[in-house]
C-alpha cells in the first residue's frame, strides 16, 4: 500500500523537476522555434527596413530632383523672358520702357528692371509703379555689374529684402545703348513650386540658398531667410561631401527622412523630407505583423512542445513509476502506455520482466517457505533433542525424562501416541515406563499383559505400516482396539544388553519415513543414556550414602577413642602429678626427673589426641561454636599464664599490649583461647632468643590480635602451607619441637568458623607475625571443612 501512495505523489512532484526530462524537452522545442521565428523576424525586419528606406529615399529624391528641375525651369524661364525682352532690338528708350513694362506684366516674379550702360551707370529703371530715366546712379562697383561683365547672363546669389528672398539676373545686350539689363526677381513665388500639390501631403520641401538660408518652403508659415546651415543635412549638402545623410533634423529638431537635389546653375539645394515616424510607418507595420506572427508561433510552439513533451515524458514517467514499484518489490504493477511506439515496446519488455520477476519471486518465496519449514522442523527436532539431552544430563528423575522423550518423540514424528518400555532382565519382561496420549485403560491393558522378549525380531527398529497384517505382534488386538493402525518400535539397547523399547503409534495406516526412524533412533539413544545415567546415579548415590556412613563411623570412632585414650591418660597424668607433689612420699631426684618426662610425654599425647579429635570433628562438619560474651584481656591473660612456664624456661620474654577500652567480644571463648594458645605456644616454641609480643586492637568491628616473634621466620614458599593439615615447615623440627602439625590448620578453621581469618607475615631471620582477625560480634559461619 505504501507503493500505491508513492505512485500518486511522485509524478505530481516530478513534472516540476528543474532538470527533468519534461522541462528539457519543452525548453529545447520552444527555444528552437523561438530562435527560428526570431531570426526570421529579424531578417525580415532588416530587409523590410532597408527596402522601405531605399524606396522612400528614392521617392523623395525623385521629388527633390523634380522640384529642383522646376525651380531651374522657373529661373530659366525668367532668364529666357528677360533675354527675349532684351534681345528685341529696341532702339529707343521708349521701346525699352515698353519692353520692360511688358516683361513686368508677363513675369510677376520680376519686381524691377534696370538698364545699365557699359560703364555701370543706370540709364533706366522700371518697376510696376514708376519709370526713372537716366538717374545716373553708379553701379559700376556693384557685383551686378562686375560679375556680369563678360558673361552672357549672370544670376546673383539670392538675397533678402526683409524676409523676402530676392535675386538679380543680369544680362548684357547689344544694340542701341548697349549695356546690361538688371532684373530684380522676387523669389517668394518659388514656394508654390514646393507646395503639397507638387510634392504630396506627407512631405515637406524647402529650398536652401547661399549661406544656408531658407529661400522657399512648402509650409508657408515658415519664415524665409532663416539660416538652416546648422542642420546636418544642409551642412553636408553645402559642403558636397560624400553621400548625403538619409536622416536629418527638421528646424524643430525632429528626426526626418531626407532627400536632396541641387538646382544646377544656382547651387541651391532642394530638400524633401518627411518625419521619420511617418516614413517608417510601413516598417513598423511589418515589424508589428512579424512580431505578432512570431508571438503566435512561440505560443503554438509552447503548446506543441508541451504536448509533445508530455507525449514523450508520460510513458517515461510510467516506466519510472514501474521501476520504482519493482524497486519496492511491488511486482504486480504493470505499465500502461499507448501502444505503437518504441516506448510501448519498452514498456512491454518491462512488463514481461516484471512478470518474470514476480514469478521468480513467488518461486523464491515458495522455496524459502519450504526451506524455512524444513529448518523449523530441524530446529524443533534439535530443540527437542537439546531439551531431552539437558533433561538427561541434569535430571535424575528417570520417569520424567522418559516421559519427556516419549512426548517429544510423538510430537516430532507426528504420531498419535507413544510409549516407552523398560526391560526387566531378571523377569525377561517389558514394563511400561512412560506413555503419551495413551488412554488409561490401554495403559492398564499393557501393564497386565506380559510382553516377552523375542530375540528373533529384536535389535533393529520394527516398522509396521499396517498392524492388521502382523498377527503375531504383542498386544496387536489391544492396539487395534484402541484405534491405532501403524506402529514403530525402536529398541533401547547398549552394546551388551537390552534396556527397553520406544514405541510410537498412529491411527492411520502408512509407512514411516526413514527420517522418522532415524529420529526415533536418536531418541532411543537418548533414552538409553537417561537409563544409564539413572542407573549410575543410583550407584553413586548408594556409594555416597555408604561413604557418609563410613565417615560418621570414623568420627564416632575418633570421639570414642579420644575418650577411651583420655581415661587412662587421666590416671597417668594425675598420679604423676601427685607423685611430683610428694603425696606419696619424697622421691629421689632421679625418679623426679623421670616423672617429669612422663608428665611431658603424657601432655604431648593428650595434645595429639585433642588435635586429632578436633580435626575429625571439623572434617565431619560437627564442630560447633559455643557463642557467649568474652573478654579479649582475659583470653590473653589465660594464654600468657599457660605459657609462662615454657617462656621462662626458654628465657623468652612475653610482652602484651592490650588497650583497656576494648569492647566485649562475642564468640567461642574456649576455642579462641585455644587458637591464641596454639599460636603463642608455637611462637615461644620456635623462638630461641628474643621475645614474643601479643598486641590487640579493635577497628571496624574486628579484633586484630597480632602475635609477633623474633624466631627464625618462615620461607615465603612455605607461608601458605603452614596452615595445611599435618604441615610444619621442616618435619625435622616437628620431632624437635613437638606438635601434631594440626595446630595452625585447626586454629585457622576455628577463626574462619567465627567469620575471621589468620594472616601470616614472616621474614627469614627476622621473625614471624600471625594476625588473628575475628569479628567483635561473631556469628557462626558455615563449616569450613
Amino acid at each position, binding site marked *: 500500500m505504501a507503493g500505491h501512495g508513492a505512485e500518486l505523489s511522485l509524478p505530481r512532484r516530478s513534472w516540476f523537476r528543474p532538470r527533468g526530462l519534461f522541462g528539457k524537452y519543452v525548453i529545447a522545442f520552444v527555444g528552437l522555434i523561438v530562435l527560428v521565428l526570431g531570426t526570421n523576424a529579424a531578417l525580415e525586419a532588416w530587409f523590410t527596413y532597408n527596402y522601405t528606406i531605399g524606396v522612400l529615399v528614392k521617392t523623395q529624391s525623385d521629388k527633390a530632383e523634380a522640384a529642383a528641375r522646376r525651380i531651374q525651369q522657373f529661373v530659366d524661364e525668367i532668364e529666357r523672358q528677360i533675354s527675349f525682352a532684351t534681345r528685341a532690338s529696341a532702339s529707343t528708350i521708349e521701346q525699352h520702357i515698353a519692353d520692360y513694362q511688358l516683361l513686368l506684366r508677363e513675369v510677376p516674379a520680376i519686381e524691377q528692371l534696370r538698364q545699365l550702360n557699359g560703364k555701370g551707370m543706370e540709364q533706366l529703371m522700371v518697376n510696376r509703379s514708376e519709370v526713372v530715366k537716366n538717374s545716373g546712379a553708379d553701379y559700376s562697383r556693384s557685383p551686378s555689374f562686375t560679375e556680369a561683365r563678360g558673361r552672357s547672363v549672370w544670376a546673383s546669389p539670392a538675397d533678402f529684402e526683409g524676409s523676402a528672398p530676392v535675386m538679380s539676373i543680369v544680362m548684357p545686350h547689344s544694340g542701341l545703348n548697349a549695356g546690361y539689363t538688371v532684373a530684380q526677381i522676387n523669389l517668394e513665388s518659388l514656394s508654390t513650386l514646393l507646395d503639397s500639390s507638387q510634392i504630396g501631403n506627407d512631405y515637406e520641401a524647402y529650398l536652401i540658398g547661399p549661406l544656408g538660408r531658407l529661400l522657399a518652403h512648402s509650409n508657408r508659415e515658415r519664415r524665409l531667410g532663416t539660416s538652416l546651415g546648422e542642420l546636418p543635412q544642409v551642412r553636408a549638402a553645402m559642403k558636397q561631401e560624400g553621400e548625403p545623410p538619409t536622416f536629418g533634423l527638421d528646424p524643430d529638431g525632429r528626426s526626418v527622412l531626407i532627400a536632396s537635389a541641387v538646382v544646377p546653375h544656382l547651387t541651391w539645394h532642394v530638400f524633401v523630407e518627411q518625419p521619420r515616424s511617418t516614413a517608417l510607418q510601413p516598417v513598423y507595420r511589418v515589424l508589428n505583423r512579424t512580431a505578432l506572427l512570431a508571438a503566435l508561433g512561440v505560443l503554438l510552439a509552447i503548446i506543441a512542445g508541451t504536448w509533445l513533451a508530455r507525449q514523450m515524458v508520460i510513458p517515461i514517467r510510467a516506466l519510472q513509476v514501474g521501476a520504482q514499484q519493482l524497486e519496492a518489490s511491488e511486482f504486480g504493477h504493470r505499465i500502461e502506455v499507448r501502444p505503437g511506439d518504441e516506448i510501448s515496446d519498452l514498456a512491454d519488455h518491462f512488463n514481461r520482466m516484471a512478470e518474470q520477476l514476480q514469478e521468480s519471486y513467488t518461486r523464491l518465496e515458495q522455496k524459502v517457505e519450504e526451506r524455512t519449514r524444513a529448518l523449523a522442523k530441524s530446529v524443533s527436532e534439535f530443540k527437542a533433542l537439546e531439551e531431552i539431552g539437558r533433561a538427561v544430563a541434569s535430571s535424575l528423575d528417570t520417569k520424567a525424562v522418559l516421559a519427556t522423550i516419549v512426548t517429544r518423540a510423538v510430537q516430532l514424528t507426528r504420531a498419535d501416541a507413544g510409549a516407552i518400555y523398560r526391560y526387566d532382565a531378571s523377569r525377561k519382561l517389558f514394563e511400561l515406563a512412560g506413555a503419551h496420549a495413551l488412554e488409561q485403560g490401554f495403559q492398564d491393558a499393557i501393564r497386565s499383559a506380559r510382553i516377552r522378549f523375542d530375540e528373533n525380531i529384536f535389535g533393529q527398529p520394527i516398522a509396521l505400516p499396517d498392524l492388521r497384517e502382523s498377527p503375531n505382534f504383542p498386544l496387536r488386538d489391544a492396539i487395534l482396539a484402541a484405534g491405532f493402525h501403524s506402529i514403530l518400535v525402536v529398541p533401547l539397547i547398549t552394546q551388551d544388553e537390552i534396556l527397553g523399547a520406544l514405541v510410537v503409534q498412529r491411527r492411520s495406516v502408512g509407512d514411516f519415513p526413514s527420517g522418522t526412524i532415524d529420529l526415533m533412533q536418536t531418541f532411543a539413544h537418548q533414552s538409553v543414556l537417561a537409563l544409564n545415567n539413572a542407573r549410575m546415579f543410583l550407584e553413586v548415590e548408594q556409594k555416597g550414602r555408604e561413604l557418609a556412613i563410613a565417615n560418621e563411623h570414623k568420627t564416632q570412632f575418633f570421639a570414642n577413642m579420644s*575418650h577411651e585414650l*583420655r*581415661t*587412662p*591418660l*587421666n*590416671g597417668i*597424668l*594425675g*598420679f604423676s*602429678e*601427685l607423685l611430683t*607433689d610428694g*603425696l*606419696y612420699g619424697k622421691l629421689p631426684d632421679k625418679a623426679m626427673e623421670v616423672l617429669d618426662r612422663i608428665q611431658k610425654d603424657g601432655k604431648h599425647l*593428650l595434645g595429639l589426641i*585433642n588435635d586429632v579429635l578436633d580435626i575429625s*570433628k571439623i572434617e565431619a562438619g560437627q*564442630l*560447633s*561454636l*559455643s557463642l557467649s560474651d568474652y573478654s579479649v584481656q582475659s583470653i590473653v591473660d589465660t594464654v600468657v599464664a599457660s605459657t609462662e612456664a615454657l617462656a621462662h624456661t626458654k628465657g623468652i620474654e612475653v610482652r602484651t599490649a592490650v588497650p583497656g577500652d576494648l569492647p566485649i567480644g562475642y564468640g*567461642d571463648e*574456649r*576455642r579462641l583461647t585455644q587458637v591464641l594458645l596454639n599460636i603463642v605456644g608455637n611462637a615461644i616454641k620456635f623462638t630461641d632468643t628474643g621475645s614474643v609480643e601479643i598486641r590487640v586492637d579493635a577497628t571496624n568491628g574486628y579484633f586484630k590480635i597480632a602475635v609477633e616473634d623474633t624466631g627464625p621466620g618462615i620461607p615465603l614458599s612455605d607461608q601458605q602451607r603452614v596452615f595445611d593439615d599435618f604441615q610444619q615447615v621442616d618435619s625435622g623440627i616437628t620431632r624437635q619441637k613437638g606438635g601434631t602439625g594440626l595446630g595452625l590448620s585447626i586454629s585457622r578453621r576455628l577463626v574462619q568458623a567465627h567469620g575471621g581469618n589468620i594472616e601470616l607475615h614472616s621474614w627469614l631471620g627476622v621473625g614471624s607475625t600471625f594476625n588473628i582477625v575475628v569479628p567483635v560480634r561473631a556469628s557462626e559461619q558455615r563449616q569450613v571443612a
Partner: protein
Amino acid sequence: MSKRILVVEDTENNRRILNDLLTNAGFEVIEATDGEKGVAIAAEHQPDLILMDIQLPVVDGYEATRRIKSNPALRNIPVIAVTSYALSGDEAKARAAGCEGYIAKPFSPRVILAKVREFLS
C-alpha cells in the same frame, strides 16, 4: 571438723587420685561409682561438695546432678562437673543441669584442689 567431699567417679584410678589428693589435703572423702549411688550417698551423708563425673553408668552425671538439685535437702551442695567431654557445649550443659563448677578431664590434681578450696573456703 573437716569438710566432706563426695566423689562420683566410675574409674577406679581417678577415684584413687581424687581420694589421695583430697584426703591428703585434709578433707573427708566419700565415694560413689555410679550416678544413682551418688545421689543416694549424697542424700545419706550430706557432703559439703560433690565432684561429679559425667560419663557414669546407670545414671549419668547430668541426670544425677539434676536429681540432687531437685532435692531441697541437697540443693545447696555445690557440684563440680568433671568431664572428659572437653568439647564446646559441655560446660553449658553441665551448668544447665545445675553444676556450679566445671573441670575438664584429664584434670590436673592441683587445679582440682584449687577449685575445691575456692568453693569450700
